[in-house]
């Protein structure tokens, strides 16, 4: 009971310090809980959704004229298969529709919503009751990412025809619900499906083969085995039109979420660290301030254990209450991140109560707080009552007279400020470390947002896309040299290049491969080590392939296409975020060694001083009949990246806000306790004639070197390590080298901003001494 009395007395004495500490712990508990919840549950979220929706683990779409029976037999006989089924769908290559603010081009598969199928289950997130033959159901992502609502009109264009529907529902799909994977499915009620089927005719008929396996992780192997069995590539005209599996889609969908979660957890760790340092300050100062009281308590017969126990109970109590409140608060904040996750994944995120995870967050905070309290209060154990009653004079052992006033240069206030800095070097180093950590986090967030949201050149390079304005796909039988020659002669065209993606077998494994005539004509160099292939016996493999097959630059690899095998020299390592980073590059001459009748069909067209829309009109007018599709690449990129930009912008704003809060809180706590500690000293200064302004300036200035050191360290670390850290975070996605632009001006502005904020906070907090009279300071 007597310990409890001490606890209450301690808290009452430092009410504002206790509440600001509680706020810091609250922030760290919220961040930790949200970050951990996202990080742990995203791993299972996608898999649980696949099971909840009974989603196909792999899907293959082929044109209707293909022979379906044989592939279906193959799939049904594949080891570990749980079910394989076929259904007729309508396939619209390069259909166009409005997505958010962009005109989006994507391959679309239209399915009959009322067809009775074993899987996947059609689960609506919302749906209109009355259905007409002019209704359509869209993936949930169209509501979150594109802003469509129930009852809105949705139009898509295909083969110069526009089809208009009313949105009657949104459904979840873990495999074909995203615009990022090249093919998206819409669903139509029976009547609407029949009506469209008649309008489109046989040309649009296609087969969708859906497969469920015992282990969903085996789905990429199944697709690989299928491709190998039927010798099809990704180029148009092959039997297989499109294939995808849940592993690939999961990886594409969860990568950004994982990065966001990692940033949150890392930032939570920083805030927890800050809280621990603050607790250390608090305890050290409360021992310092209450040293005589400790002496009195000891002389009364209190044991060190009881006095330290009161501190433990005090800080553990604050930590427990704040982190409990933080967990509750995280339920309020989680929907914001849930919305981002839903947008990124295209699936409905519902936050589940994970008591274990909450308990872990609380326990982690509690244990670290208790450890720091025990460590910081250990001095009490060695403090003799007599020494404590004398004010612990033994503790005041200054060793060096920093900045002697007679020999140092600079103004008096500045010299005294430096004295204060160097006099509390340990404390100031800790503050500098905190500022460095939050500055680094801010620089990281700003660089990330700058490269994705503002200047996207490097991001586009990172993704592995070309910076062409238009991609044209020609129909089979088109002479590529003639096409390039004629397109390059068109007004506003800078150049046109081939950039096919086909399948090749390298060292027995099948990989996507980029093919062009001359890689030096491409704008985006994805080779981070070595060089692109120049000759017909050279190849570039991605870092991820290199890891998988154990071959590097200078090694030879065996490449097989259509049963022909030759060896090629690896001249470089490349990276791409596409195809899980598993992609190779070869010249057209190179692939012709194995497939002499190889035909190119995908062309990048680079424009200057002409509107893309006008150019596409001209191209369609000139080449319309021989073109399979024309895509406005920038529009596609804009529509696909808007969701990432929003997510990263939210993270950046969150981190900058928390940085400001941390800077304000830490300076508030440190300066407030410092004023308490230096009350007598400040009184002496006032007595001998120092004005309040001189003293507040002296206090504020004494934090400038500390803050500036922290900001400089954080900025330099951010400047140097943002790219390596990103490369580390993205390495699982096939990125090994990140070369994001680090905007120096932005970092300088950020640094100046934090410095100005710190100085203003320091001045504001230290101006408290204005209200304390010299007499009070001296006599108290």
């Amino acid at each position: 009971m007597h310990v409890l009395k001490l606890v209450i007395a301690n808290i009452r004495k430092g009410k504002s310090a206790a509440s600001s500490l509680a706020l810091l712990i609250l922030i760290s508990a919220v961040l930790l809980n949200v970050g951990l919840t996202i990080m742990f549950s995203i791993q299972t979220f996608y898999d649980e959704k696949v099971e909840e929706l009974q989603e196909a683990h792999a899907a293959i779409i082929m044109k209707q004229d293909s022979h379906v029976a044989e592939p279906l037999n193959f799939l049904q006989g594949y080891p570990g298969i749980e079910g394989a089924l076929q259904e007729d769908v309508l396939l619209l290559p390069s259909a166009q529709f409005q997505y958010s603010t962009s005109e989006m081009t994507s391959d679309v598969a239209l399915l009959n919503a009322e067809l009775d199928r074993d899987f996947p289950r059609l689960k609506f997130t919302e749906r209109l009751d009355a259905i007409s033959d002019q209704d359509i159901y869209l993936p949930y992502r169209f509501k979150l990412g594109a802003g469509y609502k129930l009852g809105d009109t949705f139009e898509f264009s295909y083969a110069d025809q526009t089809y208009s529907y009313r949105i009657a529902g949104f459904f979840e799909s873990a495999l074909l619900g995203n615009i990022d994977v090249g093919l998206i499915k819409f669903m139509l009620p029976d009547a609407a499906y029949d009506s469209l089927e008649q309008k489109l005719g046989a040309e649009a008929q296609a087969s969708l083969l859906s497969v469920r396996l015992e282990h969903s992780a085996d789905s990429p192997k199944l697709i690989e085995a299928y491709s190998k069995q039927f010798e099809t590539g990704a180029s148009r005209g092959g039997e297989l039109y499109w294939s995808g599996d849940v592993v690939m889609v999961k990886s594409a969908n969860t990568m950004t979420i994982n990065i966001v979660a990692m940033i949150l957890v890392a930032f939570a760790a920083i805030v927890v660290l800050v809280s621990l340092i603050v607790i250390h300050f608090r305890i050290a100062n409360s021992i310092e301030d209450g040293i005589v009281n400790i002496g009195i308590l000891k002389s009364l017969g209190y044991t060190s254990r009881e006095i330290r126990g009161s501190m433990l109970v005090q800080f553990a109590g604050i930590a427990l209450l704040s982190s409990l409140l933080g967990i509750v608060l995280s339920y309020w904040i989680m929907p914001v991140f849930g919305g981002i996750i839903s947008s990124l994944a295209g699936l409905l995120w519902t936050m589940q109560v994970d008591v274990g995870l909450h308990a872990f967050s609380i326990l982690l905070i509690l244990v670290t707080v208790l450890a720091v309290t025990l460590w910081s209060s250990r001095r009490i154990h060695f403090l003799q009552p007599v020494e404590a009653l004398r004010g612990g004079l033994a503790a005041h052992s200054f060793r060096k007279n920093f900045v002697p006033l007679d020999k140092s240069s600079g103004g008096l206030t500045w010299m005294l400020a430096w004295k204060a800095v160097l006099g509390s070097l340990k404390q100031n180093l800790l503050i500098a470390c905190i500022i460095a950590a939050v500055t680094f986090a801010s620089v990281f967030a700003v660089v990330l947002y700058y490269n994705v949201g503002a200047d996207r050149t490097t991001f586009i390079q990172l993704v592995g896309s070309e910076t062409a304005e238009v991609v044209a796909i020609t129909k089979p039988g088109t002479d590529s040299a003639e096409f390039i020659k004629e397109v390059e002669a068109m007004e506003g065209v800078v150049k046109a290049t081939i950039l096919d993606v086909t399948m090749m077998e390298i060292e027995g494994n099948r990989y996507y491969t980029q093919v062009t005539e001359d890689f030096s004509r491409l704008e985006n160099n994805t080779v981070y080590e070595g060089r692109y292939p120049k000759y017909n016996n050279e190849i570039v493999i991605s870092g991820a392939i290199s890891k998988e097959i154990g071959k590097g630059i200078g090694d030879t690899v065996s490449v097989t296409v259509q049963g022909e095998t030759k060896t090629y020299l690896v001249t470089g390592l490349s990276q791409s975020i596409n195809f899980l980073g598993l992609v190779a590059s070869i010249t057209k001459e190179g692939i012709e060694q194995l497939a002499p009748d190889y035909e190119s069909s995908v062309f990048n067209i680079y424009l200057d001083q002409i509107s893309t829309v006008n150019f596409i009109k001209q191209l369609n007018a000139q080449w319309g009949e021989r073109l399979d599709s024309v895509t406005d690449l920038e529009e596609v990129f804009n529509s696909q990246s808007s969701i990432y930009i929003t997510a990263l912008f939210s993270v950046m704003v969150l981190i900058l806000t928390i940085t400001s809060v941390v800077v304000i809180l830490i300076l508030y706590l440190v300066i407030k306790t410092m004023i308490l500690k230096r009350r007598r000293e400040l009184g002496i200064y006032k007595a001998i004639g120092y004005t309040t302004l001189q003293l507040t300036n002296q206090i504020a200035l004494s934090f400038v070197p500390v803050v500036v050191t922290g900001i400089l360290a954080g900025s330099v670390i951010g400047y140097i390590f943002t790219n390596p850290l990103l490369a580390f975070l993205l390495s699982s996605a096939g990125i090994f080298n990140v070369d994001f632009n680090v905007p120096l001006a932005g970092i300088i502005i950020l640094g100046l901003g934090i410095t100005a904020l710190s100085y203003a906070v320091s001045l504001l907090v230290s101006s408290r001494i204005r209200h304390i009279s010299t007499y009070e300071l001296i006599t108290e």
Partner: protein
Amino acid sequence: MGNSILRTDKLCKSFSSSGVQQHVLKNLDLEIQAGDFTVIMGSSGSGKSTLLYTLSGMDKPTMGDIYFGERSLSGLSNDQLAVFRRQHCGFVFQQIHLLDNMSVLDNVLAGGLLVSKNKRSVAAEARKLLAQVGLPATAWGKFPSQISGGEAQRAAIARALINRPQIVFADEPTGALNSATSTLVLDVLTEVHQSGQSLIMVTHDIKSALRGNRVIYLCDGIICGDLRLEPYATDELTARNEKLKAFLSEMGW
């Protein structure tokens, strides 16, 4: 008798404690002459320290005026009072109050550099004063915790004198010192006075009070006795002592 340096006009100082107003100084009229070593005595709680701190601009009066020469201090802001203190006052405290994170020399300079920007001349003056108060050069670079109480108080006197103040305020300067050290400190203060410096000192110690040439006795916030003495001289100590004792006895000491 010299010119008036400090004058109060119906000076009042009250403190409020738990809603109860406590009047410490009551309509006090006092005139301090330049060059005097004025000693303020009185029983505990009579308002000695309050008077000293109010006179020196460390605290503001509740009512009434304080004049430094012809200048009223009553309307000055806290910062204006700080500037007044640095230009015209020096302080010596019972608890010594040296800045414990500074060397002895820096403590003196911390006051001196407030008034003069000429670091070299202030440093020379500080060293001269430290030598004058009898502090060996070996102690100048030490921290307050590394020197004795008497040495620290002599350093504090040097700091009080660094800006050549018109008046030095001392609040029981020997209160925390032993007998031998007290005498050394009092000798320094006496020398300072003999050089023409005005001093006001609060004390309850007769040995200390003997150094003054005027003793004011406070009773419950008012002046109830004012004794004039000849300037201090060691050869007439007995007579001086008796005169002071008689006065204090009369005051009910």
